[in-house]
């Protein structure tokens, strides 16, 4: 746990974030898989920002008469059934996916860590505090009684499709995970002597919980954000695939695959192939990055 507080302590000092990042990149150099992940993350971030701008064709504009053309010099990945250029759509898709994934992950992280701190720190106290902390845990347990995708489906189903609801569903789903991970860390941190010292100095329990315990317990949750993002992207595309996610003309890998599916079956392989490859690579990249981050934080610079 001290290493995570080191990281966060480092991060809280200006300019050290840059140094931390650079150290991580150097670390990644030694591990090709992590490097690969970092590259993917970089590429997707770039595409999210500039994708639609650098795309040769308007990703939401259908070219009549140009439907179902195989990959050619003009259309690098071919066109789909309504004549939209697949390449342009593929590189424009990260924007919506990443926005959804990042926003929902951040919300889940913030809420999850906060709840984790509360439920972990006050776990053994008596009275109301304990009731709340136990209550939080029970709710998290019950939430996990639903298979993830089905729950996301249900949330979207009950509230209606649309990007905002997808974000809400994903955020809600990921909270228990961040909660548990943080809670475990809190159990260890709260035994440390400096917490006792803070208590002697007269700080209120709430203050201790949020000013001292939280920054030091957020490490494990932080390390898990990256794979969480990958998973969120997967979930978003799954929802979009069945039509319960991002609305249709918006380019999104899952919805592109669903549009291209019937064509693929009849032999036009390019309609659904490319978005899937990109999707798989992206999720893989974020997962590898997350693994690398985890190894980097704990133990520090292993091997």
């Amino acid at each position, binding site marked *: 746990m001290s290493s995570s507080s080191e990281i966060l302590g480092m991060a809280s000092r200006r300019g050290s974030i840059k140094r931390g990042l650079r150290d991580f990149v150097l670390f990644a150099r030694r591990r090709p898989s992590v490097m690969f992940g970092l590259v993917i993350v970089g590429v997707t971030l770039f595409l999210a920002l500039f994708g639609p701008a650098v795309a040769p064709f308007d990703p939401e504009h259908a070219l009549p008469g140009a439907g179902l053309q195989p990959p050619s010099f003009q259309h690098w990945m071919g066109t789909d059934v309504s004549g939209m250029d697949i390449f342009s759509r593929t590189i424009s898709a990260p924007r919506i996916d990443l926005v959804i994934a990042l926003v929902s992950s951040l919300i889940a992280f913030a809420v999850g860590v906060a709840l984790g701190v509360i439920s972990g720190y006050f776990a053994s106290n008596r009275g109301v505090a304990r009731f709340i902390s136990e209550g939080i845990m029970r709710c998290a347990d019950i939430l996990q009684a639903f298979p993830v995708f*089905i729950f996301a489906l249900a949330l979207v189903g009950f509230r209606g499709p649309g990007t905002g609801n997808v974000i809400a569903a994903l955020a809600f789903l990921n909270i228990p995970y961040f909660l548990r991970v943080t809670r475990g860390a809190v159990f260890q941190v709260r035994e440390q002597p400096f917490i006792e010292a803070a208590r002697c100095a007269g700080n209120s329990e709430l203050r201790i919980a949020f000013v001292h315990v939280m920054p030091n317990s957020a490490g494990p949750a932080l390390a898990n954000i990256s794979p969480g993002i990958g998973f969120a992207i997967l979930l978003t595309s799954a929802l979009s695939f069945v039509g319960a996610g991002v609305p249709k003309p918006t380019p999104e890998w899952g919805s592109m695959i669903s549009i291209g599916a019937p064509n693929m079956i009849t032999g036009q392989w390019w309609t659904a192939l490319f978005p899937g490859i990109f999707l798989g690579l992206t999720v893989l990249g974020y997962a590898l990055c997350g693994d690398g981050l985890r190894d980097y934080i704990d133990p520090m610079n292993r091997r």
Partner: protein
Amino acid sequence: MRFLRYSLRRLVFLVPQLVAVSLIVFFLVRLLPGDPAYLIAGQFATKERVEEVRRDLGLDQPLPVQYVTYVGRVLRGDLGRSWRTSQSVVEDIRSRLPATLELILSAGLISVLLGIPIGVYTAVKRRGVGDKVLFVYGMLSGSIPDFWLGLILIFVFFSLLGWLPGPIGRLDPIAETPATVTGMYTIDALIDGNWDSFVSALQHLVLPVATLVLVYMTLIIKNTRSTVEEMLRSDFVEHARALGLPRSKQLRYALHNALPPVVTVIGIVFWFLLGGAVLVETVFAWGGLGQYGVEAVIYSDYAPLQAFVLLAALFTLVVFLLVDLAYFTIDPRIKT
């Protein structure tokens, strides 16, 4: 005797869990912002229509009354009516459940029967070619979306090679549907003695099951491998080696102790399979519960959706109950 006591305890514990689940499902609809009546009535509904829907769903009653009526209905076996199929939800479920079960059970069984031996083998014989292959496979299958993989498999084996039938459901249109015993076409066809239908059903089963297995078997392989490796390095296996116990016995000690975590992973895989089944059913037009649930979402068919979620939760609870029971039989350290 101990086992009976434990299983009874767990079964009893199931009840409050179900209650909690039903509460969540209930509140999901009613407490979230947005009016389900509008959703169901549709965009172009008139105000009267919306009101009608609201009354229909009993949304004008106070919450506690709504919950009680809801629970009452469920216990009586009334899960509502689907406005899409015009049938009772219970009837819809009954006709679709076996299809999904067939899918999940086959995929689960194959994943376990293949995954565990592979996991054990790579744990015992480390650093072979298999290691590298497995590593790549593991990385890939965790990232590739199952619905996309299904499409690729269809493309290769149906569109290109023509070896297997296309995604038109569970049976060839010309094949005879076997007499319903379990509802699972493969088993029923065997019972019926209908060889053609059996083959047809099996052929249609191959690709969807393969999709699920390819994606979810990794979990079993990875976990089995790491658990067995850990056990092989454990103190008590070392000590067995120090006392001259033959290698086969050492391996048995390790495998036996690896069983509890592996059983948990198997449970988790079945849990994942339910979610995966939903997507795979959509790709392959399987006509099971998964597809039913998805359609309910898209068309805002409220009653089936609620029932679907409830069933999914029930399935999860049952799977984890079974895992707990299995754990209990294997590990004597668990207290009653």
